[in-house]
């Protein structure tokens, strides 16, 4: 029997590598248990999952859970907030690292440049819990921001920044930039580093100013990186920032802070109108659409700019 399934050569190689297969066992077990079993667990989106009967005994309900997800106002609000926040992050958050990388690149003093980089990367390594805590205290009614505004006479009463609906998205965009702007310049800076210096030397001899060098040499040279990162961000449009919105949202701005991810998580904590199956269906909707978006943008970029991730 075996001979029909596997050729002699395959069997020979399998024998040769038999100890090497053992190296795969621990990792494979962990991935099967914690990556693949949960994927299998998605059958629950077609069930009315009840914890006592489990995945095998729960009642099958077809697409009822999806129908329930789409018909609730929670979903519409979460989808809208997700797209608005992601859209703002794309619009403002995407060009900023490009501009800052170009500016950093123009710094003449190398020690100064290194220091700026070292400092501005720090917030990226800190958790959103900390970032949220820090900015809540900076922006609190007795925090330093209000203090300065009061001293300058710009306001007469402290602003309740975190409770103000109109200020919520600007704060979300700002704190996101605060955390990741410095770090996101890395991709462009290392891309700039690969540009041959001879090109700049030649341009200098021709009398091109630094501004013109930046416009006609640097930017075109990194356009591939810019396009690739743009496409990646478009592909991740449904990821509005799970950790950020969960840690920075509060009751006063709930209507604006709830995104798809937080709506799913809420089914596990409390305060959700969804049961577990409906929550899982919402989660699955998000990851399937997200995956489609990713493949579409990847295909577009492969086709039009010849850069791709997969």
């Amino acid at each position, binding site marked *: 029997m075996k001979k029909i399934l596997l050729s002699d050569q395959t069997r020979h*190689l*399998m024998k040769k590598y038999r*100890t*090497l297969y053992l*190296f*795969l066992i*621990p*990792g*494979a077990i*962990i*991935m099967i*248990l*914690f*990556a693949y*079993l*949960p*994927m*299998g*667990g*998605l059958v*629950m989106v077609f069930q009315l999952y009840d*914890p006592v009967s*489990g995945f095998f005994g729960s009642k099958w309900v077809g697409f009822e859970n999806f129908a329930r997800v789409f018909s609730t106002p929670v979903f519409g609000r979460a989808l809208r907030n997700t797209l608005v926040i992601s859209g703002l992050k794309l619009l403002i958050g995407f060009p900023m690292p490009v501009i*800052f990388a170009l500016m950093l690149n*123009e*710094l003449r003093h190398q020690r100064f440049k290194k*220091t*700026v980089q070292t*400092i501005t*990367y*720090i917030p990226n*390594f*800190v*958790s959103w*819990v*900390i970032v949220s*805590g*820090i900015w809540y*205290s*900076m922006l609190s009614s*007795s925090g*330093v921001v209000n*203090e300065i505004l009061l001293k300058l006479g710009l306001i007469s009463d402290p602003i309740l920044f975190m409770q103000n609906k109109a200020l919520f998205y600007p704060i979300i965009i700002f704190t996101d930039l*605060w955390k990741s*702007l*410095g770090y996101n310049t*890395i991709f462009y800076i290392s891309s700039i580093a690969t540009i041959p210096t001879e090109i700049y030397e030649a341009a200098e001899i021709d009398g091109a*100013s630094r*501004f013109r060098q930046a416009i006609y040499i640097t930017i075109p040279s990194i356009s591939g990186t810019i396009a690739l990162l743009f496409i990646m961000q478009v592909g991740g449009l449904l990821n509005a920032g799970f*950790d950020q919105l969960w*840690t920075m949202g*509060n009751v006063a701005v709930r209507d604006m802070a709830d995104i798809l991810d937080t709506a799913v*998580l809420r089914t*596990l*904590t409390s305060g959700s109108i969804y049961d577990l199956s409906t*929550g*899982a269906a919402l989660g*699955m909707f*998000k*990851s399937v659409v997200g995956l489609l978006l990713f493949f579409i943008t990847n295909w577009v970029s492969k086709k039009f700019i010849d850069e791709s991730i997969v």
Partner: protein
Amino acid sequence: MKLSRGERTFDIFNVVVMTLFAAICLYPFIYVIALSFNDGTDAMRGGIYFFPRKFTLENYAKLFEDNRIIGSFFISVFRTVMVATFGTLVNAMFAYGISKSDMPFRKFFNWMIVIPMYFGGGIIPYFLICKSLGLTNTIWVYVIPWLATPFHIMLLRVSIKELPESLEESAFLDGAGYWIIFVRIILPLLKPALATVILLAGIGQWNDWMDGTIMVSNSKLWPLQTLLLSILQGTDMMAFFKEKNLSTAGGAMARKISITPESLKMAMMVITVVPIFMIYPFAQKYFIKGIMVGSVKG
């Protein structure tokens, strides 16, 4: 080379903007640290910007009196160390295991790490699986699921591919098996990549709050981040500070206690962030390199 007036103006503008940028990134940390070392009641008067005005260590002393905070600190250390060491070992073994291009079924194992990078079951099925495996409400839920990470396997695999094959062949002729080759030759040569993965895993573990929020209802088993989040969000605040007779700032003043919930929060944030600052110099060196490798096609 002579600079034109426009260029000089730009240089000055550029230096000013970059200095401001760095200052904005750094200042909030200084503010929090200054407040954490300041008398809590005194801090309510405002006016503390860079240095504590009425220096005290009481905020920290109070925190370290609390068993739950010490417990949480050790849980964070535990998960960080466990995943950074054993997880990296498991990942390196897997990466080495799929490094032979003529190994039968290699493609199958390759797909095994690719698929989870793009699609997952989501947190609800994940929670239910962990629950049925008896991991919820134990500290093992922070460790066991993270022992294999597809992205880290990818990073290590890229580095293993770069190693010359001749090294292994000569060891083979000396009669060494794969395990000996792995431990004596591969791992030592992989040091930079291993450092990257250890730091990635360590920082990820130290910063994670979600596992605790979802999987563990017993707050005594929470890592520092989850405990901090629940204190910051106020869900846990009343219970937490009542234990310390500090339920309100006003109450604190009346009793002439110099600690307020705010000042304790600041100290707790500092404790939570200090380990990150300590490893930051290494992180900057390895992490950034690793990210670059990862972003250039897996």
